[in-house]
């Protein structure tokens, strides 16, 4: 498949509507979970449960999700997520629904 088309398909649809909470929760568990663990308590990447993120504001966390952390394995998710989706994930992580 054409990669640009795939990214467009992933990004364009949610951009027009509210973020798809179920799809995003799945993404957090399964794909963020590759490094942070399915329970988000850490792996190669750090613990990202709410109690481990108290030093983050929602905006800052959203920026980390979208742009990654250079020099570490945390990749920029901007190619795959909209601003609204990243904001939803930051809120999801900070407000402890990730428990």
């Amino acid at each position, binding site marked *: 498949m054409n*990669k640009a088309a*795939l990214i467009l398909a992933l990004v364009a649809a949610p951009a027009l509507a509210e973020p798809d909470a179920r799809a995003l929760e799945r993404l957090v568990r*399964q794909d963020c979970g*590759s490094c942070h*663990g399915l329970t988000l308590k850490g*792996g*190669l990447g750090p613990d990202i449960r709410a109690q481990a993120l108290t030093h983050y504001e929602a905006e800052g966390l959203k920026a980390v999700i979208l742009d990654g952390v250079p020099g570490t*394995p945390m990749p920029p998710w901007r190619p795959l997520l909209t601003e609204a989706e990243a904001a939803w994930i930051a809120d999801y992580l900070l407000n402890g629904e990730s428990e």
Partner: protein
Amino acid sequence: MSLTRRLFGGAAPTALRATSLGYLGPEETWSWLLFGKNTQVRKLLTAAAVVICGAMATGAQAQATGDLGLVVERATGSLLVVDQSERASLGRIEGLGDLSHASLVYSPDERFAYVFGRDGGLTKVDILERRVVKRVMQAGNSIGGAISDDGRYVAVSNYDPGGVRVFDAGTLEMVADIPTGSKTIGLVDIPGTRFVFSLWDAGETWIADLSDVPPQITKITGMGKNPYDALVTGDGRTYIVGLFGEDHLTALDLWQESPAPRTILPGYAEGREGLPVYKMPHLEGWALAGTDFVLPAMGQHEVLWVDARTLDETGRTPTHGQPVFAMSRPDGRQVWVNFAHPLNDTIQVIDTLTKQIIHEFKPGPGVLHMEFTPRGREVWVSVRDVGRVMVYDTETFEKLSEIAAESPSGIFFTARAHKTGL
């Protein structure tokens, strides 16, 4: 083997298949052994055994484990027991905790599996009785393990606390604690009751010799920045680490008295933009394809080939996405590749001779793992998001079967018990 076990095949009451009467062997050897030439007693006993075995054919029955396997169900903390020949699931073992990114190894008799959970749990399961034999929480956060060549020790690689812990395979009592002060990855077994592993933070590889306790540790520095995974070849000779922090891989020749790091594939991504890595590739002992090793690139959409003897580059194959597994079929004739999110619905098959892609297909969203049957006739594929393990013929690529599983990830056939480094 005790008489009872011989009679009933040593199998669990829950196992499925009947032991044929032929299993008792010619002339009912056991009764002859016990009662020698006392023909009367022998005949009586033989008759009794036949009656008992007839009755047991519907109850306690034996099953060999050579064509069985386990599928990790990552979200539910369970294992599916599968039968390769029947292409079917036989049952489920539950209660194994967090199995995201779990892997397992087998005891030499292929009856027990040691499962390494992300949550630090080490669980010994009995495939025949389909139950947890013992479970210990040995660390806070783990990443894989290995079993020693003599089957005596099981080693687990830990992120937190960083290091390796070694356990008695029978009792799961800890026999050695090897703190490394670093997240520890790429743990494999090599001959001589030894384990090899690497340190993410320190860029070192350590060899632990368990032939004596406390173990002898050999440390090799300068492996490169942030090794994320490693493999050892089936002969236990070549240990290759993948590096997150450098544009090459590093190899060790473990047959040398003092193995020294050797840079391989230097600058393979030079001059090209590194793509975001949404899933770290895996390095596994399936790398040898013909006369080359095949390796996943980091941050690039390609697999890399090196000559297995000289370790010089022999080619590259552009792929659909960033490879996660690049696995040689057991005969080495093909290489099957799956990919990182968001392209993880696809598999490509590469011909080893031409290094060209000969087949591409989409089993479904979330292709996490592939496992060949021991001689490579079939491949079993975990498709997480459709909750299925798909079975394909590796020559015709025809789908042969589908098996329902809860968020399946790793698939492990018992034949791994007899392979170094798996």
